């Protein structure tokens, strides 16, 4: 009996130890699925509210159709995953799995609170951004492997757009790292003491980071990679069943990770932990999750407001407007450091 209890306690400790809790529970897998279920449902309800209608309702009438995504995922699960004959089968099947994985990896580098983190390194910002850069390469593979003209064009578009947003994204992130003097996400949050949030210090970097987050996960108005009315579903045209479910979730997960990074760098991470929630891993985790959810709702609301840009206009915005802005934000950080405003 005793060893059963100790075995159970051992598993519990293992589960709640940072190395497993972070990748599996909080910023990791479980929260990712919950966030996907919530955000896609909320996006459809928000767009419906703007469009004078209800949105998903009768799935669960009392909660306003909250589990609509559960029904959709179940349908994908039991739909027949068609693998067309002429496609490159290995790349075709592995593509979505890698894409979903590549979007979930960066959650490892994101700390939950100053004392609860999976990996602590003084370049954890670069780890997160570097792992994020995997996604576009895999989308190219998907687009090429599914042997369909529309997915080929979609994959190439992903290649173009990646060039346009990846570089300014790194520059604006590094300008914040320069401002805080460190690239370690935990020290970044520590140094945003009181209300000296990154957003108030260097708003230029915040704006560019948010716009690039929209561009990188092809949210409106930059929904160019899976532009429905031009190239059907972009690189994911040939996918059916759970394979398509993974690709659809991957872009939302990437946006979730970018929102986590934004709230850590610009909104003071888990800083103002309310008193009643001060239990170490849960309190800061909830504050961080709340901030990133608010950001995701903002990004998702764009679907109801904007049509989509053309590929050349989006690239022009990326290269001619956002890149100079992000370089400007670097100079702004340097100026702030010279003036000694830095925390």
């Amino acid at each position, binding site marked *: 009996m005793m060893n059963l209890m100790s075995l159970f306690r051992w598993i519990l400790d293992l589960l709640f130890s940072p190395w497993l809790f972070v990748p599996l529970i909080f910023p990791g897998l479980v929260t990712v699925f919950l966030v996907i279920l919530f955000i896609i449902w909320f996006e459809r309800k928000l767009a419906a509210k703007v469009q004078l*209608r209800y949105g998903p309702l009768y799935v669960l009438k009392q909660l306003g159709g909250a589990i609509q995504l559960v029904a959709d995922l179940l349908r994908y699960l039991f739909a027949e995953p068609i693998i067309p004959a002429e496609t490159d089968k290995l790349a075709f099947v592995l593509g979505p799995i890698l894409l979903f994985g590549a979007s979930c990896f960066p959650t490892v580098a994101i700390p939950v609170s100053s004392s609860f983190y999976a990996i602590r390194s003084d370049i954890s910002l670069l780890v997160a951004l570097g792992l994020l850069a995997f996604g576009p390469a895999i989308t190219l593979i998907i687009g090429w492997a599914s042997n369909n003209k529309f997915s080929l064009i979609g994959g190439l578009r992903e290649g173009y757009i990646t060039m346009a947003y990846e570089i300014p994204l790194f520059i604006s992130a590094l300008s914040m790292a320069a401002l805080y003097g460190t690239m370690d996400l935990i020290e970044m949050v520590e140094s945003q003491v009181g209300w000296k949030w990154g957003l108030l210090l260097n708003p230029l970097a915040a704006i560019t980071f948010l716009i690039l987050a929209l561009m990188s996960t092809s949210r409106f108005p930059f929904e160019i990679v899976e532009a429905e009315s*031009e190239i*059907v579903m972009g690189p994911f045209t040939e996918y059916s069943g759970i394979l398509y479910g993974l690709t659809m979730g991957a872009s939302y997960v990437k946006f979730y990770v970018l929102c986590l990074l934004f709230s850590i760098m610009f909104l003071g991470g888990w800083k103002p932990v309310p008193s009643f929630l001060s239990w170490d891993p849960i309190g800061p985790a909830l504050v961080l999750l709340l901030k990133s959810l608010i950001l995701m709702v903002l990004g998702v609301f764009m679907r109801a407001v904007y049509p989509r840009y053309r590929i050349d206009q989006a690239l022009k915005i990326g290269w001619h407007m956002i890149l100079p802005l992000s370089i400007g934000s670097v100079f702004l950080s340097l100026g702030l450091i010279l003036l000694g405003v830095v925390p």
Partner: protein
Amino acid sequence: MSEERTMELLIGPQHPSSGHMRLYAEVDGDIVVRLKPNIGYVHRTVEKLAETKKYIQIIPLVERPSLADAANHNLGYVLALEKLLGIEAPPRAQYLRTILAEMNRIHSHFYGLGIHGIMLGSSTIFMWGFADREIMIEMAQRLTGARLTYSYIIPGGVRRDLPQGFEEEMEKALRYIERRLKDYGKLFLRNPVTRARLEGVGVLRKEDAIKLGIVGPNLRASGVPYDVRKVQPYCAYPELEFDVAVREEGDSMARVLVRVEEIRQSMRIIRQALKQIPDGPILSENYLKMIPPKWKEFMETKGRVKFPAIMANLRPPKGEAISRVEAARGELVYYIISDGTTSPYRFRMVTPSFRNVVLFEHLIRECRVADIPAIYGSMDYFPPEADR
């Protein structure tokens, strides 16, 4: 060049923005070198069937190809038939026809605006367009009893009179639509993304529009003030003053703005028509005297027309007649040749969308792949109407 630079993209009948047709696009990278439309996917042989149906049976047949704009098609056919029969509808019926035609123009333009919105990616404009379209459909349902296929206009007059309190409800509906049009301006027409996607895209110059015989808002957006309601007024249009929406730029944004302006003009027409509508019978005299007195009294009280027996086997005299009507998408021509029997010898129906088909090859050239839906939507092209 030995190796093949361009890729042939088949934007087929199953594609979110291809409508009921297939577009063969020669694509070189992101640039569309050439685009050839392959229509005929909804060719339901209306002209051949018309030769087997009686004259009164052709009214529903004529409305089906252009479902979003059924009243104007019905009006065009009945005007041609009345020229053959040599009868004239009474003034009140003329006004009722004009009111229904303008209501149909409004909700057909909202249909075009909605479809164009979803093609640009803005699902809100699709939902708003179809929401505001429902208002005019509801008013048409009160007047005629049907949502889209009214068959309201019959040779010699109309089938029903204005219901009670129609004017007040119409005034409320028109005021609501005016408020909504302001929201469209804020969210869609002045939206920086829409302007980036539409301005300067698919420019149709004035001479090309005339040379290719383009009709409707696409023609008026290129600076040609040609509108059949002004050139050859029919029904109650001579007594109503309204102006023709014309713009000079000729690009996709101009076409959308012309349609929005035409919605405002149609509202103005409906208001005037409802004010000036004369009293009197809604069926022409030589059919009224054929109706037995019991049914005539029913017609006065109920305001609904009882068809005289002659309608079943109308035999217009031998001859031919042509009629022009300004449908929502452009000028609609009917050409009927009758040989004295109960069905026409040859029935020719030239719809505005069929005359705009040539726009595909002319406009969508040397533009981006993303411009195909933008220009296609701005043409307000309804494939069943073009294929007949």
